């Protein structure tokens, strides 16, 4: 039987809660300390030339690089280029993947026909398609976004399709006893039941879109973080490379956190 939590908290329980809280604080502090330690060690070994700062760069020089880049505005331009390409690629991959997965769920015939093609496309290393995209679409943003799309699309289709198939057959039978149409089965049961699958597909998709965009920018680009990394590497400016990598990791982490937040909002019933 469901009961509301009692307002009274025993001494023992209070002790327990305190202990849990203390442990959580300790975890956070340690995580933070590790980060500080990492950068401090890096700074020190570079400053005292224990390792060559030319090869590993140095946090203080990375900060300086960031300053100069942001002062002439180009930092935000590069971030914006990469971020927008990623968001577009990711959104397209998710939406198109979802539509195709729904079509494959809808028609068993279509799904059987598509199966071998999906298997082949899934195992193909999509980076191999890069030069083709460039020849077809030139050297703008289009081939880069297509690259992100190519990498994430098939995985999305396959994981959503599997998720749709795993929805309890009996739930569908229940809807059929009410006389539900196929469209109603889709909207009332398959899609809402697959929200956790969809979210985990989105999480994977974000990571893959970053891979696609950075790979695309490595191959062909005039701007973006991938461009900065390649450019910095070519002229041996490791400061630039390291700074870009650092910004990239922060951005992708932020995007991930946003999705986790979305997940919490969407799956209240858990």
């Amino acid at each position, binding site marked *: 039987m*469901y009961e509301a939590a009692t307002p009274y908290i025993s001494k023992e329980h209070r002790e327990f809660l305190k202990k849990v809280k203390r442990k959580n604080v300790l975890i956070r502090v340690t995580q933070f300390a590790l980060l500080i330690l990492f950068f401090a060690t890096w700074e020190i070994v570079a400053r005292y030339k224990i390792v060559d700062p030319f090869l590993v760069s140095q946090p203080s020089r990375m900060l300086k690089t960031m300053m100069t880049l942001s002062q002439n505005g180009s930092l935000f331009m590069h971030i914006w280029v990469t971020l927008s390409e990623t968001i577009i690629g990711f959104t397209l991959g998710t939406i198109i993947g979802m539509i195709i997965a729904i079509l494959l769920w809808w028609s068993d015939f279509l799904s059987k026909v598509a199966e071998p093609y999906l298997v082949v496309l899934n195992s193909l290393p999509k980076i191999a398609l890069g030069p083709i995209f460039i020849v077809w679409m030139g050297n703008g943003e289009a081939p880069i976004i297509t690259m992100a799309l190519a990498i994430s699309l098939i995985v999305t289709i396959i994981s959503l399709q599997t998720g749709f198939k795993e929805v309890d057959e009996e739930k569908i*039978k229940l*809807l059929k*006893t*009410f006389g539900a149409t196929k469209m109603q089965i889709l909207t*009332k049961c398959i899609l*809402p*039941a697959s*929200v956790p699958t969809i979210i985990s597909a989105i999480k994977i998709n974000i990571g893959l879109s970053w891979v696609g965009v950075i790979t695309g920018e490595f191959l062909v680009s005039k701007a973006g973080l991938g461009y900065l990394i390649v450019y910095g590497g070519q002229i041996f400016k490791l400061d630039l490379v390291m700074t870009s990598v650092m910004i990239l990791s922060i951005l992708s982490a932020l995007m991930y956190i946003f999705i986790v937040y979305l997940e919490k909002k969407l799956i209240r*019933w858990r």
Partner: protein
Amino acid sequence: MNKIMVSLKDVSFNYHTLEGETEALKNISFDVYEGEFVGIIGPSGCGKSTLLSIISGLLKPSYGSVEVNGKIGYMLQKDHLFEWRNIWQNALLGLEIQKSLTEESKKYVEGLLVKYGLGEFKNHYPNQLSGGMRQRAALIRTLALKPDILLLDEAFSALDYQTRLAISDEVYKILKYEQKTAVIVTHDISEAISMCDRIVVLSNRPAHVKKIYDIVLTCEDRTPIGCRKAPEFREYFNSIWKELDVHV
């Protein structure tokens, strides 16, 4: 004689798969009268669920005819409440599907929830409810469509024994109170005897009717729990047990 609600005549059903043809039902005939509770009992895998699917119209018989006079409500083995909907939204599911969601029908469902003790739990999600309450919510979801005939497919088997006794007692009272006709599939001989007016015993697959028992119990308190004390209870039990001929 009461009105006939369900009439089965020489119903046979075969499943077709690539592995071959499975005969599930063979020449099944019986009638269900208005207000009657008919139990269906038989060895596992003999075709009981198939029979209910045929009565409900989800499957068409390979041979024979089915006649149903009235609206059917189907209760499956598990409650199958949708985890992402709260109890209120779950209770309205059938009405939503049939596009008959009106102020009046909502009021009716609201009344059912209150009457059967779920009024305060409208906004709870299924995983916050006990097994018995979930089963009750599933029953209300079915009753919301005002069916005349209820098909219960081992509707209580997912519950623990005590909850199961209590809930079957409760469901019995609810269905009698709402004056429904019921076809109850169960594995549990005692449950069948205690709830039903007649029991159809099916054979091994392909299922055919082995015997039909008229259950007459002498007890003042004709509820599933009350009538378990009736002197005839044991006799019916032993007789049906023999008829089922279970070998382990």
